[in-house]
């Protein structure tokens, strides 16, 4: 039987992590179908059909699918599930919200946040904030899986031409009403997919001081991250949080500034290729994962960092 991937999108475009999730599911079974549920999401469905890994796209539209309410989405997937051995989606807030609802309806024990496909029924996943990795084997006839997108490369996004089939919507749940979404718009690279991430922690001391992080990020064409402490203190909004309960990032370069390095933060960034830590406390745990540690006052180091970068004229954009 084939694998069903639930596409993540904003009705206009696919979310980039759908490409990473497609790679992961193609390692389970080559026969990958994708369902896209939304409203006026034809363009996104077309983009999905162009992923060479996808063999068939199922498009389901209704006005009440516009805002991705899990209670409305779940019955659609549950109905389609009879034709599939695996149901999968990304382990971000979209998938985390939705998949357990589907799994419970199918009486399946979900496997969350896989980082590796070992076989069609066996997967690797982090537990205890990534301080241990469990190999788990599902005994359920149908598997429900969420995928840690940063653990898989994005698949090719063009060249495919899968047929797009329309399916009937399931009804509206009615007990949940979407009110509004406050998205923080930015021209920066997305935190989850950025090549460089500059993150600030409690050591920044104020939201205003985060402009030091912003300047450095501008220079490096980086996304801005933050520790939970910085978000809790109101220095920066929640969508920047990196860690066990925030986002997991795997950039080529992660620069942690004024972040002590609690295990909950390390869980979200320690797979980064190169880690830099700038902290005035030489004993801070962040140094234990840093490739390059600089024990310094960040208020002196960050302006110097900018200056040194200005001296280099070969910064990769």
């Amino acid at each position, binding site marked *: 039987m084939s694998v069903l991937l639930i596409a993540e999108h904003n009705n206009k475009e696919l979310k980039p992590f759908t490409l990473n999730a497609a790679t992961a599911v193609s390692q389970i079974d080559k026969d990958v179908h994708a369902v896209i549920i939304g409203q006026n999401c034809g363009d996104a469905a077309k983009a999905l059909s162009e992923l060479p890994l996808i063999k068939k796209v199922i498009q389901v539209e209704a006005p009440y699918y516009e805002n991705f309410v899990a*209670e409305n989405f779940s019955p659609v997937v549950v109905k389609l599930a009879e034709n599939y051995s695996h149901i999968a989606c990304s382990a971000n807030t979209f998938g985390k*919200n939705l998949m357990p609802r589907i799994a419970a309806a199918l009486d399946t024990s979900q496997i969350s946040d896989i980082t590796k496909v070992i076989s069609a029924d066996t997967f690797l996943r982090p537990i205890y904030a990534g301080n241990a990795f469990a*190999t788990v084997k599902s005994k359920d006839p149908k598997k429900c899986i969420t995928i840690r997108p940063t653990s898989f490369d994005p698949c090719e996004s063009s060249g495919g031409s899968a047929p797009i089939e329309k399916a009937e919507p399931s009804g509206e749940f009615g007990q949940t009403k979407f009110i509004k979404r406050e998205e923080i718009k930015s021209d920066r690279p997305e935190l989850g997919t950025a090549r460089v991430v500059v993150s600030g922690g409690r050591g920044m001391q104020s939201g205003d001081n985060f402009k030091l992080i912003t300047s450095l990020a501008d220079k490096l064409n980086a996304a801005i991250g933050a520790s939970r402490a910085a978000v809790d203190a109101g220095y920066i909004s929640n969508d920047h949080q990196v860690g066990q309960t925030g986002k997991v990032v795997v950039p080529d370069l992660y620069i942690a500034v004024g972040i002590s390095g609690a295990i909950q933060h390390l869980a979200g960034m320690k797979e980064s290729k190169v880690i830099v830590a700038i902290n005035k406390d030489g004993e801070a745990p962040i140094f234990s994962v840093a490739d390059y540690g600089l024990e310094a006052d960040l208020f002196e180091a960050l302006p110097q960092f900018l200056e040194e970068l200005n001296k280099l004229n070969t910064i990769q954009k």
Partner: protein
Amino acid sequence: MKILVAVKRVIDYNVQIRVKEDNTGVVTENVKMSTNPPDDNAIEEAVKIKEAGKATEVIAVSVGEEKAQETVRKALAVGADRGILVKADGVLEPLAVSKLLQKIVEKEKPDLVFMGKQAIDDDCNQTGQMLSALLNWPQATFASKIEVKDKLLEVTREIDEGLETIEINVPAIVTCDLRLNEPRYASLPNIMKAKKKPIEQINASDLGVDTSPRIEQTKVEEPPKRKAGIKVSSVAELVQKLKNEAKVI
């Protein structure tokens, strides 16, 4: 309005996790255990709603071994009125826990069920959504703000893109984010008072739920260790290393 709050006993968030030498799991012997952190936020929110006069009773429930009673007791010490311990040994997957909680919900008939958005041990992030599906109730996950408005809740949810606001009709499930509130500490008099509050014990096996695991954990390993890094003495040296050695800028 009656609020049921599910709390889980987990290894304390400050404990350095060690993997057992035989790779069957992590070391739990002689390790400090605590309430799963966002479950503390769930209890706090329920107690605050009651203090605001919008709820009549807060019931804390935990599913797990006998010692999970301590976790229930702690919830009583910060304001829950009574407790329930569903006793079950061995591995309990979120699906099994949500089925047991469903039985408790059917018995207690709460208007709201709160719990943390994720347990910090298995990091599954499933139980609330599963319970919500089993009951066919609305769900508000990752809540960072809850407003009780008569027969509905307005909930602000933390999502990857920022914040989302939804309205859900009661009865409903809410899973709580760490930013929902600042959990209080239990005062000594309240800890003493909590000792007199009732905890009902129920055997999971009496609830008619098959809790046997569907997932076999074949191996638990340490994460790959990072190579030890170096300390640089100046920003100039750092930038040189990033450019010439790591080649990332």
